[in-house]
């Protein structure tokens, strides 16, 4: 597991392999065990998890908070959309768009980081400035509804989202952002990574991207840069006095995190084939922070866990029909009515409660206590949890293949 002392060395051992299996195996098997919608939803949550991981990198390993990761996410998504819409026609693949999206986000992160860290702003101001960046981008993109806001064939589209202008006769037809379409060396034709009734390639693309990014991040953290970052997190003044270049280290980590957020944005645009200014909004920005806080800000995988947990929770709450609020009068009726209305606002209330509860009671998040438990009692992991998961998933896959599920 992650070395709590933070010396950066990646300790491989039984618990690491166990953790990998516990996480990766279920995720890889989901499309076979459940209806296509499950892979669809899970892909989205993994994308949110990737975004959360970028915040984990900054927060857990360089000690800065940033409310503005969604700015890079959004820039990555829009950049991918614009480039893909313009290149899918002539080129047939969106490889350039993927690279371009991530590059745009990285560039913005670099500029912002330079501005913030070399400007000697304190962390708190920096966090708020980055939030402001996101909000400015939000206001800007909402106002791009007019037809003068066009890049090539890509209409920025304002609040209605990015779309492409075809030319059918005199008027404007629109086509959507294409999914990631690549022609790898062994393919005869370009292949579109979709998630639908017939294909789950898009899901595995997302899963692969998350896994690769996670491993890459772990490698970076195991390097000298990672150890300096942890030193900064523990005590910035001391690290500075020891002679390390604080600003350069922070800049690098921040830019890396920006790149990851941009990649998440690219995957997001490809998943929903839609991106609109909401990605720059306050609600989304705070959602990332909630994910990381709940999952565990000091671990790299905390963001993923938090993102999965929170999004499953809010999706579940979105499916609850309101309780009977049209009941009889009197005090009971009033109470019933209030309960009904409270359930209607449940998403907000629950998120707020989770935030406060986590900060006051569960500062480390979900992952560290569980991780500590598993590392001290690995046998429970190997001989109980893993078999349980395997049995569950085998049953799921079997029933789905035989079309005999109970639901």
């Amino acid at each position: 597991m992650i070395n709590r002392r933070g010396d950066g060395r990646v300790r491989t051992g039984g618990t690491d392999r166990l953790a990998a299996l516990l996480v990766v195996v279920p995720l890889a098997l989901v499309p076979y065990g459940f209806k296509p919608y499950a892979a669809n939803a899970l892909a989205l949550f993994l994308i949110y998890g990737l975004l959360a991981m970028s915040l984990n990198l900054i927060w857990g390993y360089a000690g800065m908070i940033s409310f503005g990761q969604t700015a890079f996410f959004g820039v990555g998504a829009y950049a991918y959309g614009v480039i893909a819409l313009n290149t899918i026609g002539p080129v047939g693949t969106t490889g350039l768009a993927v690279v371009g999206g991530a590059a745009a986000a990285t560039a913005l992160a670099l500029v912002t980081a330079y501005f913030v860290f070399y400007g000697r702003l304190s962390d708190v101001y920096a966090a708020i400035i980055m939030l402001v960046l996101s909000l400015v981008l939000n206001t800007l993109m909402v106002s791009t509804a007019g037809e003068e806001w066009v890049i090539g064939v890509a209409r920025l589209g304002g609040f209605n989202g990015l779309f492409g202008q075809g030319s059918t006769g005199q008027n404007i037809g629109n086509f959507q952002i294409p999914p990631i379409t690549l022609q790898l060396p062994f393919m005869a034709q370009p292949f579109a990574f979709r998630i639908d009734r017939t294909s789950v390639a898009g899901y595995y693309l997302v899963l692969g991207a998350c896994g690769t990014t996670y491993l890459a991040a772990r490698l970076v953290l195991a390097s000298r840069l990672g150890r300096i970052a942890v030193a900064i997190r523990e005590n910035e003044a001391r690290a500075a006095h020891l002679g390390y270049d604080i600003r350069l280290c922070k800049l690098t980590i921040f830019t890396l995190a920006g790149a990851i957020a941009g990649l998440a944005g690219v995957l997001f645009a490809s998943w929903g084939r839609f991106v609109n200014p909401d990605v720059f909004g306050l609600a989304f920005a705070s959602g990332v922070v909630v994910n990381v806080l709940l999952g565990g800000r000091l671990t790299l995988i905390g963001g993923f866990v938090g993102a999965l947990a929170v999004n499953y929770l809010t999706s579940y709450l979105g499916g609850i029909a309101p309780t009977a609020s049209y009941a009889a009068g009197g005090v009971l009726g009033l109470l019933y009515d209030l309960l009904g209305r409270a359930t209607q606002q449940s998403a907000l209330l629950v998120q707020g409660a989770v935030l406060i509860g986590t900060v006051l009671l569960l500062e480390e998040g979900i992952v560290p206590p569980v991780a500590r438990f598993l590392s001290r009692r690995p046998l429970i992991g190997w001989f109980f949890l893993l078999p349980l998961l395997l049995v569950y998933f085998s049953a799921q896959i079997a029933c789905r293949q035989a079309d005999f599920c109970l639901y």
Partner: protein
Amino acid sequence: MMRNRRGFLKLTASAALTTAGGITGFPNILRIRSAQAANEVPVGSLLDRTGAFNISGQPAIVGTQFAVNQINAKGGLLGKQLKLIEYDTQSDIAKYTQYAKKLILEDEVVVTHGGIASASREAIRPVFDEYKALYYYDNLYEGGVCDKYVFCTGQTPGQYMGRLAEYALQHFGKKCYTIAADYNFGHISWKWWDIYWRNGGDISPVPGKPHGEHVGQVEFIPLDVTDFNATIQRIQQAKPDVIMTLIAGAAHMNFYRQLAAAGLHGKINIVSANFGSGNEHILLAPSEVEGLVVCAAYLDDLDTPANRTFKEAITKMVGDPKYLVGEQVCQKYNGWNIWAKAVETAGSFDREAVTKAMESGIAIDTPLGRIKSDAATHHLFYTMHLAAVNDKHGWNILQTYEDVPPSDDAKYCDLIKKPDQHTQYQPD
């Protein structure tokens, strides 16, 4: 782990949360969903019960539930009961996409009604196109959708602007200053208003008819701006005969308040494309908005037997005799009912059969009057009412027009001749 109570509590909390997340999140063997009854057919609804758009979302949910309950109480459709599957999209566009896929892939609904802001519609329209599923968008909007799998039962600019322009030219004058919300509804509506105003109420110029002109530059106002000081100064500088408002959202309501505070109420006439749909006439004082003219389909002041019955039934269902039955409630009610009529006409829930039925020109009587489906555009002919705000937080109905066509959409969209279209047109 057992070393201190705090650590143990943390572990338990974490484990509990993880398990709870797993149980609520993943469909699992422990929770066997009730089997789809043979005499039930699933239908879907995507609306914002919470979040910034719930001002429109909640009345829409009321309308939806009332419509579905009423259909089921009368014996259902084709002998089957409708099973309403509603998702709260929480004013989050990504959730719209997510739940739309869920309705299609997992719940396998035969139709979905949903979407409030145009952005939500545009986010999910491609999903319905991709899976070839039926979708109804039931809100007033900026017009232009031309999609074989989609029916828009809300009013379009051709319906809420045409007669309004005529009336304003006749009674107020030729010079118009327009302010619009700085997002798609505002921008596209402005383009239509520009056409209708300059053509005196028609989509193409009619020789001999009075036509209007614009003064000042159209002003686009971001959605979160609450201070209209500078705008009001510019209006005073331009000296228009009439102001056209295409503004939206809670923040923009202050425009009327601030205009009145600057002493301009009664000195400049105001017309609007969408005033009233957020119950602004109730929330603002008569001293601020009396005399404002709109052209709307549904007004809760409509004094017809159908509307009286409708309002009684809704207030009874909600349990609040003072409940404001507004446009959102009626729009949803109409949307579901015209779909139901199409299903009965087609004798099937299949998308293609229902589409054919809608394209055969069915009509129903609603609390606001008669609505009829327009085959070529997949929109509706509407009964529209020209009305002015009175001094009692209500409306004076000035005139009623029947069978107003969606002339804006009709100019570009013919889904009978060219069926394979999935787009949103905008005015040249």
